[in-house]
């Protein structure tokens, strides 16, 4: 299965827009999972959450995982960020085995999870404070990111003064401020209304193009997955395993019109079949 090749051609933003720092060449970039499985030990015995998974996410790729609820998608995300050790196998990020939080990820959850006592700017600065990096150095970057997502002028506002969509955009800035290679997004737009959600999809695609990050996004929405992804991984029900991985051959940049493309609808249909034969998608 070839990774989408068109990303490098169409997805390369102009140099001045790239917010990525230059990385040392040599190490195999991206995320590699080899034989990674997870079993939770509980009082009632072992509960398998993920069956052994093998796949690679390329550097700069937009990789989307769809699957029924409870199939271990969030476990996957925690293992890649180093919060949770796999029961077997190993996770490699940029060629290095993940054993503990490595800080090379930005995480966005379904809820924006902004700290209510910090204003938007200092919420965005949270990773900098956690890592103990010099604040002054990153303040400009935080402001630039807020500008990038259209939150200029809201720096001093408290989270509750912003709408749900705006809060989620701020949390995307927080995931990007320390310039990680990888963005992990766990159903980031699940709590938003349908219209905001579509707008956020377009915006996320633009942010990913402008920053060149590797994105692993988890979603329940098949159209959203196909619309955003370079590749879509379909998972089975618990314990989760790979049902299939699809290339999305839609050209970039995509707009909401891409959703009426026959390629798009055919792929959505095909992915949906997995869940109709398996059961239901939550």
């Amino acid at each position: 299965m070839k990774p989408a090749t068109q990303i490098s051609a169409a997805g390369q933003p102009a140099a001045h827009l790239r917010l990525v720092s230059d990385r040392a060449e040599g190490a195999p970039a991206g995320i590699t999972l080899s034989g990674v499985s997870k079993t939770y030990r509980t009082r009632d015995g072992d509960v398998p959450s993920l069956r052994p998974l093998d796949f690679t996410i390329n550097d700069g790729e937009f990789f989307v995982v769809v699957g029924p609820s409870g199939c271990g998608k969030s476990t996957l995300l925690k293992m890649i960020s180093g919060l949770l050790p796999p029961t077997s196998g190993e996770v490699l990020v940029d060629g290095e085995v993940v054993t503990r939080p490595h800080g090379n990820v930005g995480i966005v959850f379904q809820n924006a999870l902004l700290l209510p006592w910090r204003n938007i700017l200092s919420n965005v600065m949270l990773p900098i404070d956690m890592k103990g990096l010099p604040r002054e150095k990153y303040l400009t970057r935080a402001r630039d990111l807020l500008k990038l997502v259209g939150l200029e002028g809201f720096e001093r506002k408290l989270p509750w003064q912003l709408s749900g969509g705006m809060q989620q955009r701020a949390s995307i800035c927080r995931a990007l401020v320390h310039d990680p290679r990888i963005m992990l997004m766990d159903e980031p737009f699940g709590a938003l209304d349908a219209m905001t959600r579509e707008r956020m999809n377009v915006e996320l695609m633009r942010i990913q193009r402008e920053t060149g990050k590797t994105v692993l996004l988890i979603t329940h929405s098949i159209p959203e997955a196909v619309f955003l992804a370079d590749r879509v991984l379909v998972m089975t029900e618990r314990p989760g395993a790979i049902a299939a991985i699809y290339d999305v051959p839609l050209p970039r940049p995509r707009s909401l019109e891409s959703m009426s493309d026959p390629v798009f609808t055919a792929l959505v249909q095909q992915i949906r079949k997995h869940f109709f034969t398996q059961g239901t998608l939550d």
Partner: protein
Amino acid sequence: MAEAKSPSGVSRVLNAAWVRPFLFLVVIVVAWDLSIRLFRIPAYQIPSPGDVVAVLWSDWPELLQQSWPTTYATICGFLLSALFGIPVAMLIAGSKTVESYVYPLLVFSQSVPKIAIAPLFVVWFGFGIIPKVISAFLLGFFPVVVSAVQGFKSVDPDMVDLARAMQGSRFRVFCAVNLPHAMPAIFSGLKVSVTLAVVGAVVGEFVGSNSGIGYVMQRSIGTFDLPTMFAALVILALLGVILFWIVDRIERLVIPWHVSQRDDIIFAS
């Protein structure tokens, strides 16, 4: 009577936050006075409000002087319960092992009536300030622990994961996420605690003391001097209200971001 001429001025005064409880108090006092007159309750059972006010008026230097030891014991006991209660709550919320050992015992100890063991403190520590402080501390401690444990435990685990994924050390994550998150709960515990600390200090004074409001009450009951006893009750209530108000003010300063304080912030967007 400038207000009387402008109705907006009168209604503003009537609607001021501090006037309402005051008006309610006036209603209660009037009802008290009326029922004594109506039901012909003798003065040795319930004194009339007038007598109580008379005592407050004539004996206020003595009452004021006696309220210092009580205030002092209350504040010391309250500060101790905050000083010990919050770290204990941190340990209980942070470790399942500590919780399983300590929490049931804490609840168990709470069921022991403090007034029954207060004489023990007199035996151990004499008639000085210490037994009163301990008594105030014991009453104030429990609500702080329970609320703070609740506060520390209600942190969204995703939020903690998020901070930990940024390589935040345990201490940094705690200071940036857990502690501020627990503040509203801690303050609600402190508010309960401060009023109970007053009770604790008085209990301490009941069982063995020669000063303080509790001592005044004990003495006046012995001599059937009910107006003085009621005057002491009024002083105690005032003490509780003032201390509660101080904690409330501090809360506003410390957690201005909380939902309960939001009406103070002007929405500007």
